[in-house]
């Protein structure tokens, strides 16, 4: 019986994770994220107006037939701005986070193979993690000035230690697994072990973390834009749109609804994806 239990507890193939994404929680998450991503990608097709096009229909309109989400202070169509604004967040989510993850993973790999690098990497990670993310954001914004680039740098900087530690721990633990030792004993090189065992094994926990980090990235962009150190006007982003909408909440209530829903869909979606992947991983 112990054998059967052990078999059930053994990690599954990645296809299991793929399957987890296609049902239940995972599917809901995927759909939520997918809708927002698609809306952003198809912005030029879907948006009735340009993101910065000032219209003659009047400003701070509530929802009308022509402007489902109303217009903003300078008479721009909020729906169009929302669709284009998603793109900034997509940039942050799908470029900044993976860059941070890649750098962090590389550093983690290096740290797990070379003792000296390990000491340096570990202390660096400690150091970055010792700054709460938002304070790190404010600090970097002071040096670099606000903007999308700063938001991305903050996210990259915040992700490096997270992925670095994750990869380092997972390399070290995978390397001690009996079957990896068995390969080492027959003469597998470090590179071989890395490629054949460590990476496939770490991939799942990395994907889970990637999803979590992507939801955090949406948060960071929003919080930074809210504090005025994020994306700069007139560029729309979910954070700036929420900020604008909140500012006009007594006049045009509908303004804030769109970006808010998009943020919640993204964060919730990524959260659900990470949960379902995590569950699949635990078996």
């Amino acid at each position, binding site marked *: 019986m112990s054998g059967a239990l052990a078999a059930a507890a053994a990690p599954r193939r990645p296809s299991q994770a793929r399957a987890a994404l296609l049902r239940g929680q995972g599917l809901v998450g995927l759909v939520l994220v997918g809708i927002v991503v698609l809306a952003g990608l198809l912005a030029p097709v879907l948006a009735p107006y340009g993101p910065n096009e000032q219209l003659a229909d009047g400003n701070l309109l509530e929802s009308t037939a022509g402007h489902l989400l109303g217009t903003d202070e300078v008479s721009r169509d909020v729906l169009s701005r929302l669709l284009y604004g998603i793109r900034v967040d997509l940039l942050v989510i799908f470029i900044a986070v993976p860059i941070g993850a890649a750098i962090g993973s590389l550093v983690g790999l290096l740290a797990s193979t070379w003792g000296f690098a390990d000491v340096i990497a570990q*202390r660096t990670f*400690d*150091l970055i*993690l*010792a*700054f*709460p*993310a*938002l*304070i790190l954001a*404010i*600090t970097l*914004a*002071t*040096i670099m000035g606000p903007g999308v680039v700063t938001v991305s740098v903050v996210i990259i900087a915040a992700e490096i230690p997270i992925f670095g530690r994750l990869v380092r721990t997972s390399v070290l633990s995978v390397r001690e697994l009996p079957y990896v030792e068995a390969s080492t004993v027959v003469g597998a090189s470090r590179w071989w072990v890395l490629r054949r065992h460590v990476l496939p094994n770490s991939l799942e926990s990395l994907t889970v973390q990637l999803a979590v980090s992507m*939801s955090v990235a949406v*948060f960071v962009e*929003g*919080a930074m834009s*809210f*504090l005025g150190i994020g994306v700069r006007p007139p560029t729309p982003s979910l954070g700036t749109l*929420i*900020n604008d909408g*909140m500012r006009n*909440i007594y006049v045009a209530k509908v303004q804030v609804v769109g970006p*808010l829903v998009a*943020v*919640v869909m993204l*964060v*919730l979606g990524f*959260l*659900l994806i990470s949960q379902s992947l995590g569950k699949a991983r635990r078996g």
Partner: protein
Amino acid sequence: MVRYLIRRLPSALAVLALASVLIFLLIRLVPGDPATTLAGPGAPPQALAELRSELGLEGSLPSQYLSWVGSVVTLDFGRSFVIGGDIGTLIAEGLGNTLVLAGAALAIALVLSLLAGLAAVILDSRWLNAVLAAFSTAGLALPTFVTGPVLILVLAVLLPVFPAGGTPPGGPFEEPGATLEFLILPAICLGLPVAAALSRFLTESLRTQMRQPYVMTARALGIPRRRIVVTQVLRNALPAAMTALGIQVGYLLGGAVLVETIFAWPGLGQLIAKAIGGRDYPLVQVLLLLSVVVFVAIQLATDLIHAYLDPRVRLGGRSG
């Protein structure tokens, strides 16, 4: 315990030392000369020189650093140039307020997550679990900068139950009743994501503990399930939860920047936003260092509490 502390101390101190160097250098990385920015571009050279010396911008970098560290260690922070006043006083006041706010948020988070975790494990009902999962997901998915204004809108403006922000007339320490009234919305706003994360973690680790063989042992001895949960399972889940809590407390510091701005709570978060906005470099330096010190201290404290709660760590290896 002491031995454990001694073991953890060097790495904590290393982080502090590195952070102090980094903060020191960061300020010097800011484009433009801090003294010129603070004095205004038209300031007379003599005033500028005076300012430079007061800012500690004279001499080589290492000597600047040493003198800065020296003054910080002796709690001589100097004065704030933009906000005005003695930095020590500013920080003391802000710290008091932030501690009250963060403490309240933490209390809310602890109570909520304990209730959620215990209810989930003891009652183990399907719909309750679904409700709790929905609660924690919502808590994690709603950004603070949205919950804050919405809380104000609903509970202060539409239904004027609580004040929309600010501090009680006599400051947060004068009248506990009034303080509570002012504290409740910002504390909820700050504590909600923490409560969500913590309850999720606690529930998960309680469930893991429930599968441990010692629970079966206890049940086989006829100890009622509820009692096992409260006296044994929770006790076992606590050390790990403490570590998670430590990380969450770190987030509280960052979240305070947003929440204090939204609710006009005059704490460190607001101070740091103001200091950076005004390019008040001496204050920024000290505040950044303080946030790192607090963070490291919290990590150390949670490690120690973890050690204290877990006899395996506290007492070391086997002695019998």
